[in-house]
């Protein structure tokens, strides 16, 4: 009798679980980003804009770029994300691993993106970049090139770089006089890698390292570092908040974040339609009303009203900049990460 009762409880539970999983198949469209002020503003202008235009419910969630979760989601065929914002190297890897759907270019219009704004599995969302900056209240006429950043006599103080080989090794080569166009050619050779590390050795005692994107502005403000290389978006926002950091566009290194659809998403068709809508210039211009966005959409990027509103818009400043080579980092990332960590610990 007791067993029978237990059985029926178990059956009821199993039934409820099955119902729940059926329910999950017909769920709302779920879009995922890196959070922060971008997502807070994109929620209104892009996500809910699309929801209103198509009369459906769109929810959004935040992740911090960790791929392990996506991989296990796809492998266990329990996909709870539909549209997701991804950094370039993760997008390329995930595309080759079948973690992202190939973009349906009959739904998403390919010709509206800036050069480099489309890949097999991704449609360009926004540009991001890092530049050199310092506090003019503490330093008059600070370094405005990476070569000058290496001049520790003229410019004493700590230099804050990102604690990854990506961007750091490029900066070392730029400082050593390698033209931007040749940086990745040089860095692909063992001699070029040694050259970058040797260059970093020259100022190693003056170097500090940051991990989280909020740190450069924070550590310049707190006086821990005198010069820093940080995300331009954060520098612009600090300036909006009263800081007067110079934007040294000649020192810009930049890349693109993409929208992608998670493989096996029950809403993949709807996801493609959403990507088409949120990469159009009209909603992006609406987003620009509240947030200084650097869109990967050609028309939006060329819109004079937008660049006037957002002096930090990257597409206006890329002429002297270095485009971070995604393919290079997918190829050499693991190897250089190991060498970087060996070098740091030396």
């Amino acid at each position, binding site marked *: 009798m007791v067993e029978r009762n237990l059985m029926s409880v178990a059956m009821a539970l199993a039934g409820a679980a099955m119902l729940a999983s059926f329910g999950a198949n017909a769920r709302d469209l779920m879009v995922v980003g890196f959070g922060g002020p971008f997502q807070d503003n994109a929620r209104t202008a892009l996500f809910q804009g699309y929801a209103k235009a198509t009369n459906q419910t769109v929810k959004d969630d935040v992740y911090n770029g960790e791929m392990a979760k996506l991989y296990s989601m796809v492998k266990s065929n329990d996909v709870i994300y539909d549209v997701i914002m991804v950094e370039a190297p*993760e997008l390329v890897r995930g595309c080759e691993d079948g973690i992202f759907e190939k973009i349906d270019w009959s739904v998403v219009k390919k010709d509206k993106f800036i050069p480099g704004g489309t890949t097999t599995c991704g449609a360009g969302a926004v540009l991001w970049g890092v530049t050199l900056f310092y506090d003019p209240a503490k330093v008059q006429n600070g370094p405005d090139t990476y070569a000058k950043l290496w001049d520790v006599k003229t410019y004493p103080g700590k230099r804050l770089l990102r604690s990854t080989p990506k961007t750091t090794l490029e900066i070392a080569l730029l400082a050593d006089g390698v033209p931007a166009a040749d940086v990745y050619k040089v860095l692909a050779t063992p001699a070029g890698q040694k050259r970058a590390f040797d260059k970093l050795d020259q100022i190693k005692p003056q170097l*500090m390292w940051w991990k989280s994107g909020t740190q450069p502005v924070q550590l310049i403000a707190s006086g821990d570092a005198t010069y820093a290389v940080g995300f331009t978006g954060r520098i612009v926002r600090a300036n909006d908040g009263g800081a007067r950091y110079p934007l040294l566009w000649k020192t810009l290194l930049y890349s693109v974040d993409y929208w992608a659809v998670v*493989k096996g998403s029950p809403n993949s068709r709807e996801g493609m339609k959403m990507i088409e809508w949120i990469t159009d210039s009209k909603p992006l211009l609406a987003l620009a009303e509240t947030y200084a966005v650097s869109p990967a959409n050609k028309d939006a990027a060329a819109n004079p009203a937008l660049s006037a509103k957002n002096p930090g818009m990257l597409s206006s400043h890329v002429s002297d900049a270095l485009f971070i080579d995604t393919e290079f980092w997918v190829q050499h990332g693991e190897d250089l*990460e*190991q*060498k970087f*960590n*060996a070098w*740091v610990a030396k």
Partner: protein
Amino acid sequence: MATRNNLFAAGLIAPLLLLVVASFIVPLLVTLYTAVGNPEVRDALPRTAAAVRAWNGEGLPPEAAYAAIAEELALAQEGQSIGQVSRRLNFEQPGMRALLLKTARAKTDLRAPFKGALIALDPRWGETDLWRLIRRSTDALTPLFLLRSLDLSVAPDGSVVHAGKDESVFLALFARTFVISFWVTVLCVLIGYPVAYTISTLPRRWANIALALVLVPFWTSILVRTTAWFILLQKEGPVNALLQALHVVEAPVTMIFTRFAVYVAMVHVLLPFAILPLYSVMKGIDPVYLRAAASLGAPGWKRFLRVYLPMTMPGVAAGALMVFMLAVGFYVTPALVGGPDDQMVSYFIAFFTNQTINWGMAAALACLLLAMTALLVGVARLVVPGFRVGTVGL
């Protein structure tokens, strides 16, 4: 009767046993397998794998292997499964990824005989070592990840060699992890001991308040506590302001992103794990022993060393063990307040899990960390008197 009782007892503990198996043993075995498993190439390129396994490893493989790899690479790229192969081979030999992608893209232009066509496309396809690498990567198990985690690697001819000086990180990383954990443990016990003693001698009401003061930070998220230290220790932070006001230092000192900050934050986070077992042991010690020692003429230091300290050893051992085990796996705290040369093993496990999706490396590091920790704790049990797992709290 006895057997029936045994069966009944077994039935009672069965759910617990299942829980331990499902939540501990199975994941451990999966991790172990991930550290030595080698399925990538066999899964994505099955016909190539069969063809190179039939080859004797001398000279170049037969045309069948060339034909299979040309065809299967293109299929794998189209079917979005080329990533695992290119990553696996690129990890062992940087540059392989570009070669495989180039070959996959060129498929439509390739014509039989594929041997000549592939070598014409890229001369690397004519190297015996490259084919030996592919052949090695079709073995059922691979020592590659475990070797790499110990700064060793497999040379093209299959022998095990030391990694170059500018690539050796992991041995130093394990050493650093254990050194940091050791000092954090020592500091926690040294600071925790007098604190626990004081609390154990307080009247009950005050003892409860003191324990609450120990427990409140214990209930606060590690992330919050670490971030608080980040703010306290920065150049224009309160600690520097205090030091300057007291004229201990003239100019503010850099403290964040240093080993010092890692020690401060880790000791603060882990201190309750030392205090609580110490307190519970000290609470159970009858003061009559100390009085007896005093009445027999032992001076204060001798009463402590000969009577009190030996009786609190189980608490010291339990607290130290708990702090050490937790410290060995620390991730957030060194990542936030430490510099790149203060990172511990977990940092790399997270890096390989999340950034490069090299789960073989992540699993190998995790397994080695577990094995080394078990070894150290085992040695400690033999060497330190009174050190027993299974005493207070464990």
